[in-house]
Each structure stands twice: as C-alpha cells, then as structure tokens.
C-alpha cells in the first residue's frame, strides 16, 4: 500500500501512483498535526489547574462577570483610598450645616458639600465614601466567619460521614428551619448590647448552615467520584485524600457561594439597622446603618439620605451577585465547550 516515493515516468501499476506530490502531502500532514495539537490542548483540560484556567477564560468572555468585577474593583478602591477621595472628615459636624438643621429641614447640596448634609450636619458625600470601608468590612467579615465555621462543619461531616455527619446535619436543619433574619434578630437581641460585632456575628451565623451543607454535599459527591476512588485504590492516606483531593475541589463551589453571600450580608446588615438592632455607634459611617437608621427616619424630610446609601448598596450587591453567578456558570461542567 505504501510506496514512499514515486519516480516520475515510472510505469503506473495502479492508479494509486497518481498521488499528490510531496508538497501536498506535507501540507495536509501539517494541517493534521496542528489539528492534533489543538485536540491535545482541549483534552488536557482535565487537570485541576487548567480546569480553573478554562473557567477563567470563560469568565473573561462573559460581560456580566466583567461588569460585576469592575463594580467590586471600584468599590474596593474607593474603600482603600477613602481618605484621599473624601473632601471632609466623615465625623466632623460643620457649623454651616448644623445651623441650618431643623425638625423639617436637612440642608441639601451647597458649596463644598456636593451632596449636602446628613441628619447631624456632617458631609453626606464623605460619609458615603468612608461608608464603603465599613460596608466592605462588615460584608467580608460576616461572610468569612460564616464560611470558616460552615466549611469546618461541612468538611468534618463530609469527611467522616456516619453519625458525625448525621448529628451535624440535624444541627444545620435546625438552623435552616429558622428564617434567616429572625435568627439574626434573635442573636443580636440576645447579646446584652448590640454593636458592630453582634451584627457581623449574627449575619455570619445565619450563613453557617449554607456553607456547611454546600461543602458536605460537594465532598459526598466526590467520595464516590473516580479520582477519589483511584486515590484510595492506590493506598493514599485518608487524610491526604481529604486535604489534597476533596477539599480543593469542593472549595470552588464555596468561593462562588461566598461571593453571592457578600451581597446578602450587606443587605442583611442594613435590615438589622432598620429594625434598630444595628451598630449603635453614630459616628461610624456604614451604608446599611445610614440607610436603615437615619435614611428611613428622615425619609419624609430628605429622602436623599436614604437614596444614596441605598443606591450604593444595590450597586455593590449587584456587583457581587453578577460576579458570583458568572463564576457559577463558568465552573458548571454543563457549560463547558
């Protein structure tokens, strides 16, 4: 079948001799090789690292992810550089503002105060800018604490299974049975005095069962998966299977959930303020407290006190939700192409 070279003019025993010249063969050969390389790259996407890289590539192509990430980046930048951006000290009461405060007036924009005054004669714009810091702080810590406890419980339940799993899951059942805000209200109420940390802890604890369930579910699914079975068959130690194989894979789902939780945490903190269970420190500027407390209290007098922090909360919550959803979509194997 294979005749390496054909001399021109050699009598043709078969029509096979009318093969294309070398040039054409190599051209086709090259094309095939390039194609194979492409295929190899595609099938190499089975390892953990390239799987993530793959997800990142899909993320970059998703406009929702870009919008979300941009919002979050701006939010974090404002929080970091708040002292440089803000025109005034957020806690200073300005005489030219306080003098114009009365029961039914809160001064609006004026020279040097682009958004006007808050209910105590402070610069609203500066408080909004500094508010990003506290809001980020509350959101991140509430999420991280909830995540840490939840992941620990979930990992224990998922790794051990059996009665440990059973007990831990009944505990999360109980926590899930309580409406989130009601649980947070109770927790704040039970502390003798509310403070910024009671708010953070309450919101964090509400999220514990969510993370615990998520991690456990993901780990249980992996216990049966081929790569864990293979590791077990190879005699890899149980601890290292859990730490090296199961946890890292489960964490992607947890990170996605954490991103989504951040927006919920910020909104929940605002709700607690609205119910009078928020951070009692009037000096500290935090969007949730600004909206939930003075914002609604003076809604009839000057609704802008509510509008601005509300807008800030909505935009940031939207940013985290967009990014989180896009991440979930990118990591979903169903969408892999």
């Amino acid at each position, binding site marked *: *079948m294979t005749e390496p070279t054909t001399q021109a003019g050699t009598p043709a025993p078969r*029509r*096979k001799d*009318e*093969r*294309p*010249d070398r040039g*054409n063969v190599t051209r*086709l050969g090259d*094309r*095939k090789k390039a*194609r194979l390389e492409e*295929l190899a790259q595609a099938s190499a996407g089975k390892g953990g690292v390239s799987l993530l890289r793959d997800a990142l590539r899909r993320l970059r192509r998703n406009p929702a992810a870009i919008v979300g990430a941009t919002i979050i980046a701006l939010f974090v930048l404002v929080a970091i550089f708040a002292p440089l951006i803000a025109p005034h000290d957020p806690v200073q009461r300005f005489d030219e503002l306080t003098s114009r405060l009365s029961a039914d007036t809160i001064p609006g924009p004026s020279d040097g105060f682009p958004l006007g005054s808050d209910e105590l004669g402070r610069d609203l714009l500066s408080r909004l800018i500094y508010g990003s810091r506290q809001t980020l702080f509350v959101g991140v810590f509430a999420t991280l604490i909830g995540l840490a406890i939840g992941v620990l419980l979930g990992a224990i339940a998922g790794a051990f299974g059996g009665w440990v799993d059973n007990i831990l899951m009944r505990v999360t059942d109980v926590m899930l049975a309580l409406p989130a805000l009601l649980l947070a209200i109770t927790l704040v109420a039970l502390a003798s005095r509310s403070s910024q940390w009671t708010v953070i802890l309450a919101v964090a604890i509400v999220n514990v069962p969510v993370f615990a369930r998520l991690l456990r579910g993901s780990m249980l699914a992996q216990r049966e998966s081929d790569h864990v079975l293979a590791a077990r068959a190879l005699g890899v130690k149980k601890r290292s299977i859990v730490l090296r194989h199961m946890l890292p894979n489960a964490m992607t789902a947890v990170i996605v959930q954490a991103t989504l939780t951040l927006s919920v945490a910020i909104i929940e903190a605002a709700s607690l303020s609205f119910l009078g269970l928020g951070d009692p420190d009037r000096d500290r500027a935090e969007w949730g407290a600004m909206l939930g407390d003075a914002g609604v209290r003076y809604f009839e007098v000057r609704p802008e006190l509510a509008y601005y922090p509300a807008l800030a909360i909505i935009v940031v919550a939207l940013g985290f939700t967009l990014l989180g959803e896009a991440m979930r979509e990118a990591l979903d194997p169903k969408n892999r192409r």
Partner: protein
Amino acid sequence: MSLLDVRDLSVVFQRRGERPFTAVDKVSFTVEPGQTVGLVGESGCGKSVTSLAIMGLLPKRGNKVTGEVLFEGTDLLKLRPDDMRDRRGRDIGMIFQDPLSSLNPVIPIGVQVAEVLERHQGRERKQALREARELLDAVGIPDPDRRLKEYPHQISGGMRQRALIAIALACKPRLLIADEPTTALDVTIQAQILTLLKQLVDDTGTALIMITHDLGVVAGLCDTVNVLYGGKVVERARRHELFGQPRHPYTHGLLNSVPRLDSIRGERLHAIRGSVADNIPWTEGCAFAPRCDNVVDACLEGPPPLEPTATGGDLRCNNPVSEEVAVP
C-alpha cells in the same frame, strides 16, 4: 411521484459571534412509498440534522434551511408552522436514539401513546387508551394493560424503544424516520428492535428512513443507502451494490472497519485514519481528502461533483476504489 423528494437541502448554523457552520450541504435523495432508505455516516456528518430539517424540528433561531423537502409534492419547508404541526406524527413519524430521555418521565406510557391519537384522530381519552393498548401489543410489549399505567423508568430499555415505535406508528404515517434507533440499546435488544421495525414496515407499507452509523443495520434493512460525509452525499447505491462494490474510499473504509466473522485469522482490521475533525471544507476540495488513501491532486482543487455510476447509483469521487480491490 416519490413519497419524499429532498432537493438541495442545506442547513447552516449561525450563532451570534461565531463562524457559520454548514451541517448539511445540498443533500438530495428520494424515498419511494414503502421503501427503506439508509442515511449512513459518522457522527457529525449531518444525518441527524437532515432528519430534523425534514421534520421541521430544528431550533427556530440560529440556523438557515434552504432547498426543498417535497412530501407527496408539498414542500414541507414552505408550510406554515401549524400546518407542519398537523403533519408531524400523522404523516411522518419519528423515532429517536435514546428511548429513556425521549419519553416524558412524569407521564404514564399509555397517555404518551394516546395523546398522538387524541391529537390527530380526534379520539377521546378512553378510546385512545384502548387503541394505545393495541399498539403496545402490536409492538410486542408484554402485558400491555399494566404498561399503560407505568412510567418510563419502570420499564426496560427495549420496551421503551418499542413504546416510542408505537407512538411513531400510532397514526399509520406514510413515512417513518428512525434516528439511530438501536444505538442506545444492548446488542441482543438491537436485533429484536430491528426485526420489529422490518416487520412493521413490511406489514404497514410505511416508508422508512434509517439513520445510522452502523452498516450492519443497513445491511439487514435498507433498499437504498446514502452515504454522507461532511454534510454531503458521497455515495448512493442500492444495498447489494454498496456492499458488493463500495466505490467511494470512505464507504470502502467503513466496510473494512467492520469486524467480520469470516475474515482470515490474523488479518488486520482496517480503520479509517484520523477523524471527522481532520476534514477540510468542501469549498477547498474533498472533505475526506486528508483521511483518504486514494487522494489525488484533483481532490484538493475543488469539490468533486456527484456523478451517476454505471450501476444506477451516484458517486462523488475523483479516484474511486476500483472493483478488483473492493472485496479482499
């Protein structure tokens, strides 16, 4: 007049932001009443898309269908959607590949058969269920009274495919399209389903388009075979000619890659090298050229035409397999 006359059928998929992809490229073939016609090729050759285009089941957006699909003289592609809806299930029935996912999991088998009769023959539910029972019986489902009330997950894979056949044949359509009806089944069940199909086709006089990658299925069933490659018909022949004298190198390769019981021991099975992924676009030459043992210069200069052969078939090849090498 042919029962079905497909002329220059093309399907181009065009998603936003992506290059258009021609899945079916000017495919023409005919089906005579009562005839069984095979559409054969590897996955991705356009055979399933062809069948969906005939049925009008391609997604509404993201594709462009051109050409003509004449069913008893009426161009199905020009019908209003509601008129096409009236014909589907009544004039043309279809069987799909995966019987489990093709049946609705939350509805009893009986209702899934009966609803076609209610829709096209105006039967009341009770009467339709009685007829459904007969149909299940006719396709060889044991204890049909019980099966009527059961759900897809409660019956075996073979029975599910039988139920789907009952659905497709409920209104005695003149044309049945079977898209890889045995691929998802166990080998022993495959033979039973094929036998059943053959028997039903013979009994009812329904024409059948058999879509498959499995030449074994074609060998037992089809009168005429269309071999598709890269969205084009590359060879068309009557069954005996195709198996006796495959002319296209691709058909030849397909036949040689089928293991045979009567082959000489120690003889190697010939696989076609490469995969569909190696195709070059038809506009540049013959799509099969990169994988072809018979490739000649002309193959890379432009698409070879589909030309009639001496035995009454058609062939699209510059350098067909000669007769003496065909059968080893």
